[in-house]
């Protein structure tokens, strides 16, 4: 991995899982709010299906983020002050927590009934 792709992998690993969760939360909540609100837009597609699609994408993006951060864990030993290793470790750990969060959200959303 060249320095360029390493840096991209690092920042993607740090940013992707949290943003995936944010998008899952906002999109899923807006969908549910629109469906249950008075101006409930009926698209005829079952809600659990839509929520499953949103959560599925979020989980996929979060997983790639965790993999990217994981790949950086070993190769980030070289810099003198340990800054890159710090970012790799923390991105990977944060990624795992946010991946866990997106999965837990999927379980919750699929189990409960809307409106």
């Amino acid at each position, binding site marked *: 991995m060249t320095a360029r792709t390493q840096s991209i992998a690092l920042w993607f690993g740090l940013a992707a899982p949290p943003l995936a969760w944010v998008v899952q*939360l906002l999109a899923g*909540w807006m969908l*549910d709010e629109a469906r249950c609100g008075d101006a409930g837009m009926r698209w005829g597609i079952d*809600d659990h299906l839509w929520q499953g699609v949103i959560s599925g994408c979020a989980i996929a993006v979060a997983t790639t983020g965790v993999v990217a951060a994981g790949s950086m864990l070993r190769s980030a030993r070289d810099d003198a*002050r340990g800054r890159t290793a710090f970012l790799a470790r923390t991105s990977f750990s944060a990624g795992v*927590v946010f991946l866990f969060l997106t999965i837990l959200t999927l379980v*919750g959303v699929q189990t*409960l009934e809307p*409106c």
Partner: protein
Amino acid sequence: MSTVVGREELERLELLWAERSGLKTFLTTCDHKKIGTRYLVTSFVFFVAGGVAALTMRTQLATANGGIVGPKVYNELFSMHGVTMIFFFVTPMLNGFGNYMVPLQIGARDMAFPRMNALSYWIFLASGLFMYSSFLVGAAPDDGWFNYTPLAEHAFTPGRNIDFYNLGLLFLTVSSTVGATNFLVTIFKLRAPGMSLNRIPLFCWGIAAQSFSLIFALPALSAANIFLELERRFGFHFFDRANGGDALLWQHLFWIFGHPDVYIIFLPAVGIVSTIVPVFARRSMIAHDWLALATMATAFIGFGVWVHHMFATGLSNVTYAFYSAASMVIVIPSGVQIFGWLATLLKGRPVIRSPLLYILGFVVTFVIGGVTGVMFAAIPFDQQVTDTYFVVAHFHYVLFGGAVFPIFAAIHYWYPKLTGRMLDERLATWSFWTFFVGFNLTFFPMHVLGLLGEPRRVYTYHSGFGWGIWNLISTIGAFTLAAGILGTVVNVVRSRRAGAVAGPDPWGANTLEWATSSPPPEYNFPSIPVVRSVDPNWDVEDRRDDIRRLEHAELTLTGGHETIGTDWLDGNIEEVHEGPAESPWPLLLALALSWFFLAFLAGHWVLAGIGAALTAAAVGGWQLKEPGE
């Protein structure tokens, strides 16, 4: 400083930075240490004011059918108790420690924007007085600290009460936002050379996480306040159902700010705990990187949990699933922190002194608050005990336990650095145990009261529910707690003169503020320290290098009010930043804003217009004197 060069450098620095004491300096100083001390003293005064309100309420509720104060005054007391403690005590007090310690811990000479730092304080003071002046006209906010509509609308609270609330918070938001900006730019751009991202002290991570949350959470509150003020004063419609509004819009906007706000309160306190534990465990913090991550992760997830305050409003269960899951997962970063502190204590050789006593009290208290917090993530249980005394018990365990315990630990820990004197350990220990017992006596019975069905915010209650005994115990506890706090106040006041001389580093601590004298000179460090580990003050040979650099006039920056600017990732030197020394403009801008807000409150639109013009003029005046280059 044996050599001549060293002495000359010190004299030059003294000449550049020293500030005469006097009214003029008092009003125009931008020194982060003076402003930090002022924040601490002013917010402690607000703490006492909020505490008096709390004691009055506890006395009223000590027995059934208590009649000391009527419902109107009681509603003002509990609303102002909440507003004071959250907005005017705990955040400013932590910002006071932040203001004083962040520049010292990162090896800088002052904050990034010294004048904005002074502006933050003056606006904080002005907005506090603005909010408390509501008591003078008998119209203090009386719809609770979260001020739900439609009760807060003009139809149901016609007086000026809620206008004081809206305008007071908008006024304070200016101070908090400016303060947060200042902290973020300082922490990420003014670190000592060599202090890369992984060597930032954990207290600075706490302040950075708090500032990140403030920047992104406060505007939601401002939008809510602006909407409500427009609705109350000019007949706009945002929250009234009859004209296309929605009452829950206020709850969403408020809690999008509200929950991050409780982490804004908690995160710097966590930073304080992470600062004190390694010093008294005599060992570097274990899992330091993960504790730094935990601070930022708590702040970030904190933005996605706000609907757990609205589980009883009858929204869709699928919506609740999102927020219940996030409210569960946010426990993980806190879990890592708690076990990180405990592991550090158990792997090290603890030295039991008063700061560590408060920290150990914090750990036990916060865990109790944390587990009840998890219970509130459980949707059905939350729907049973929200808005009862169980939630009052929970948030006091996590806010009082989670922030005030660390604040008192910080008072005992940093008092020697602020004043050069040690606090009296015996009195401190007695005060702690009174404080700890008083706290638990006050708030633990509230769990039982909540389970016994006592709603919160009731100015009185009937006998026969089994509530009387627990309320009585809680009131006794409240006075015990007040005694514990009084003990610390006496200790702080008496030790100014009677305390033993502390010297630069009485605790043998690991962070940079202990590498300079107590109290530090205006320029903080004779020569900017160079950092090569996360515990710079324990790198003795590095600190000797600092002295050698002073004797070779390296990094002493005697060209003016200068400090080092470094890049935010690796801490390599970028440039030298020139900052202003003293300036009247922060105070003048704060006064102009006060004029605007008072005129707006009173409804004199012309005067308000003049106030706005004065504010613009003051901002213009601010830019007149430019650093010569």
